[in-house]
């Protein structure tokens, strides 16, 4: 086992006790990156080689120099008897959707390929202030618009470490890959419909979408501003809690960041699940997708392996003292994707307006005298397919004559989805749940190229995760074994607003109870 394979908490203890140095930890990560990552994503990838298909391509930008300076700084602080912070020396990666001063911040789009951020996003600044070492910026779907990382303008896109012919999920694909393969110990991603939880599930990692506003969005290039949540991806629940401790909290630069006092998510992490009420809902064991021929909505059961895993998880939790509540109705779950389709695209189209070629980012090289033509060409050449589709859809459903029918209606659906959760979690209600246990994804990692191109079907990969984004509640995805093809299966815990501590506690209880299980010992393909 290399240093880079340790958990964040293990590693930082070794570093703080000066058993190993932060520079050694960094070198371990860099070595792993060189071994498994292959070439970074680029705008001019050329032909995909056989080698490319076996490597991970998590990174867009590796900031080795910067990381080394920071690691040296941590070591110097320790040598001087100073405290470099609770994550001292822990290497982490950043989804390339967060601004970090002096580093390229691309959003995986050609339109921002040349943009170097002049300031640092709050969660990244907090990680660095806690002594963590940023390794670089990792790949994602362009502007986070996808569930497979395939839509990145920077190719080759990231691949799944468990099987490199599979997608890693998305949009925080590079984040999940880098942590799964030991390139980084932690990563920060963002979750707008499942973009942390789904890639975490596909890559066998722990991913937390915190309560909306729990983590500041300042410095995060916006996708759907009312849905976006930055959050951790880690290899275990304890690391997730430790990272949340650092990145959560009020921020005077984000009006929507909650002003609750800081909470220690590690404190009661191992207090067990005795007496906790954990629900199962039939509405999370089926998915509704539109029939490609008729467009009619049809319900399909989930793959049996996935449902079985969830039920086994529930049984295990019951054996640990949790009360399992079956048949909790969540009737509006099936409308999550259509409502998201509308709301996220209205916000996305508006959020993309600023990329006009005037101030920063890509501008058409053609000489231009007409302003509108300059806008059209700069945006036409700079944006990939997904941003264009989302602009078209977003502009359509928010137009004066359609807004009532689509956008306003989607907002009502959103409120109904929120109400489903409120009823399930109501302390005086029928179910009184502490958490709802569901599958994270309707399938395990699908093959690269299989779904890409079908924007609607791709969106349905988020069906079981998106309700939490609509409702603003936290969701935690934890690994719960593998399917018959050796691909990780994730299960999800959803809880009321600000219940991260409870969700992490349940996740940790499950983790502790399964430490010795055989599937826990399996390593990703690229590390075998």
């Amino acid at each position, binding site marked *: 086992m290399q240093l880079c394979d340790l958990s964040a908490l293990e590693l930082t203890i070794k570093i703080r006790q000066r058993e190993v140095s932060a520079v050694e930890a960094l070198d371990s990560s860099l070595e792993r990156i060189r071994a498994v990552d292959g070439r970074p994503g680029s705008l001019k990838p050329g032909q995909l080689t056989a080698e490319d298909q076996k490597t991970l391509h998590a990174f867009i930008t590796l900031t080795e120099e910067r990381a080394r300076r920071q690691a040296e700084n941590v070591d110097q602080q320790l040598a001087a008897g100073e405290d470099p912070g609770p994550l001292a020396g822990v290497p982490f990666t950043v989804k390339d959707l*967060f*601004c970090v001063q002096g580093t390229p*911040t691309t*959003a995986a789009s050609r339109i*921002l390929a040349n*943009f170097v*951020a*002049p*300031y640092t*996003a709050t969660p990244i600044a907090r990680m660095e202030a806690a002594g963590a070492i940023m390794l670089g910026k990792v790949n994602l779907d362009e502007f986070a618009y996808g569930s497979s990382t395939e839509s990145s303008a920077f190719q080759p896109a990231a691949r799944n470490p468990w099987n490199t012919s599979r997608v890693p999920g998305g949009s925080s694909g590079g984040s999940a890959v880098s942590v799964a393969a030991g390139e980084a110990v932690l990563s920060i991603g963002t979750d707008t419909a499942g973009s942390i939880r789904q890639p975490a599930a596909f890559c066998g990692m722990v991913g937390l979408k915190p309560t909306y506003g729990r983590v500041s*969005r*300042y*410095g*995060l*290039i*916006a996708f*759907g*501003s*009312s849905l976006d949540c930055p959050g951790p991806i880690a290899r275990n629940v304890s690391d997730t809690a430790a990272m949340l401790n650092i990145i959560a909290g009020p921020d*005077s*630069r*984000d*009006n*929507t960041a909650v002003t609750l006092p800081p909470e220690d998510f590690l404190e009661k992490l191992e207090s067990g699940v005795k007496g906790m009420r954990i629900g199962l809902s039939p509405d999370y064991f089926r998915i509704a997708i539109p029939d490609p021929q008729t467009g009619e909505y049809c319900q399909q059961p989930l793959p049996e392996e996935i449902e079985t895993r969830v039920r086994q998880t529930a049984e295990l939790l019951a054996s640990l003292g949790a009360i399992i509540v079956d048949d909790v109705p969540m009737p509006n779950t099936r409308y999550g994707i259509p409502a998201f389709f509308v709301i996220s695209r*209205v*916000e996305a*189209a*508006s959020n*993309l*307006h*600023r*990329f*006009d070629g*005037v*101030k*920063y980012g890509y501008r058409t090289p053609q000489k231009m*005298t007409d*302003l*509108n033509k300059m*806008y059209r060409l700069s945006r036409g050449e700079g944006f990939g397919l997904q941003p264009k589709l989302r602009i078209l859809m977003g*502009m359509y459903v*928010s*137009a*004066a004559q359609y*807004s009532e029918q689509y*956008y306003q209606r989607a907002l009502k659906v959103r409120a109904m989805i929120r109400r489903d959760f409120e009823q399930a979690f109501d302390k005086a209600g029928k179910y009184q749940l502490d958490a709802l246990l569901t599958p994270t994804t309707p399938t395990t990692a699908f093959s690269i190229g299989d779904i890409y191109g079908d924007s609607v079907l791709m969106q349905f990969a988020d069906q079981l995760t998106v309700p939490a984004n609509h409702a603003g509640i936290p969701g935690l995805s934890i690994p719960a074994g593998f399917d018959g093809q050796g691909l990780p299966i994730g299960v999800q815990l959803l809880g009321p607003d600000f219940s991260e501590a409870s969700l992490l506690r349940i996740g940790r209880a499950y983790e502790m109870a399964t430490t010795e299980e055989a599937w826990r010992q399996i390593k990703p393909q690229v590390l075998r």
Partner: protein
Amino acid sequence: MTEYEVVIGLETHIQLNTQTKIFCSCKADSWEQPPNTNICPVCTGLPGVLPVPNEAAVEKAVILATAMHAEPQSLSFFDRKNYFYPDLPKGYQITQYDRPIAVGGYLDLPMPDGRTRRVTINKLHLEEDAGKTKNEKGKRYIDFNRCGVPLVEMVTNPDIRSADEAAQYLTRLRQLLRWLGISEADMEKGHLRCDANVSIRPKGSAELNTKTEIKNVNSIDAVRSAILVETERQIREVESGGEIKPWTLDWDDNRKSLHKMRSKETEADYRYFREPDLLPVHLDDDWKERILADFPELPLARRQRFMDTYALPEYDAEVLTSERSLSEYFEAAAQAYGGDAKQVSNWLMNDVMRMLNDANIPASQLRLRPEHLAEILKLVDAKAINNAIGKKLLKKVEKSGKSPAEIVEAEGLAQVSDDSAIREICQKIIDSNPAEVESCRSGKESLIGWFVGQVMREMRGKADPQMARQILSELLKQ
């Protein structure tokens, strides 16, 4: 021939005089700063930034709303108004749409003929300003300094019926804004901007006809002129069988003419939606109470009260309430004086206001405090000094900051009312001017004034002039 009346609605943009911009910590005011020197990632819309509302902007808007008799809303929202323009760095403007900070309200305009015209307000909303674009030699220059400056947009209903009323509305609004201390309200500097919607109809008709919108009017006079020009154009158009089109017109103040900016046949679709980056504005009773704790008496009320309480003529009351610190100065002086407030008004309007104009400062910045003015008036009343010395004292106090009594004492300015002292000087003047004495005695009695002047000069202005006159006429009769 048909008689027409003009129907006008005014849309004003008021720049609030907050310290910082509405959503970031840049200074709000960039006057005379070089382009793009008062900007930050937030107001220039860099990727990833978020707006943070400036509470002072909300508070000033609530103060204005209250002064306009509008209803501040306990819950209001910010929205995005989406459109592309190079000086709008985010590609949307953060504004308020269907749930503004305040609705309704009115402003009463006292008209010169004694009537009062009430102009009702549709709504007031908060928004951020955009930057400035300058076209020069085929190039387009953008200055982001103004991005994010807090504005209140206030829209009247089509209640205004003449160019004069429109001018009066703006005059009164400007007075009110300065009175409340929420905007510098300088139209030339763009602190107060106005677009006028103008239509005409036959007198007596209640219809609202197609209107044109006049933009780019930078002074109250320009608003008046532009409305007059446009009204005439519309009448000519209709009279000649033409049709009014919903144009947007640009006012050229040099040529005193309007020209068409664009046809406005279809409304632009701004795709408004709630700004997800900002929480709703909850204006609870506590906050509102705190905001309005020092809410002042408004100019028109104060004007009326000055007429009622201090028995001032309307003209005086109007002048003294033209500006808040002047009105407060007057009231403080009148109370300290306790005598005839008209005296205070006279001294203020004649002498003190001249000092204010010369120094270009508000009354609150005078070193001559209201108590000083009252003291001078009392000294004059008590004949401790004469009127002329009193007026000189105003300047001496302003210059030195010392109290009038101190100056009188130090400079020996007290009026001499001692009969023998004055008599001695009078005798001396008579003795040394035999020719004038002769003329006077032979009937040219008006010369007595000249003698008084000589005595005053000899006594450096300190003599009681009445007493000097009396003694002189006594001596000259001998």
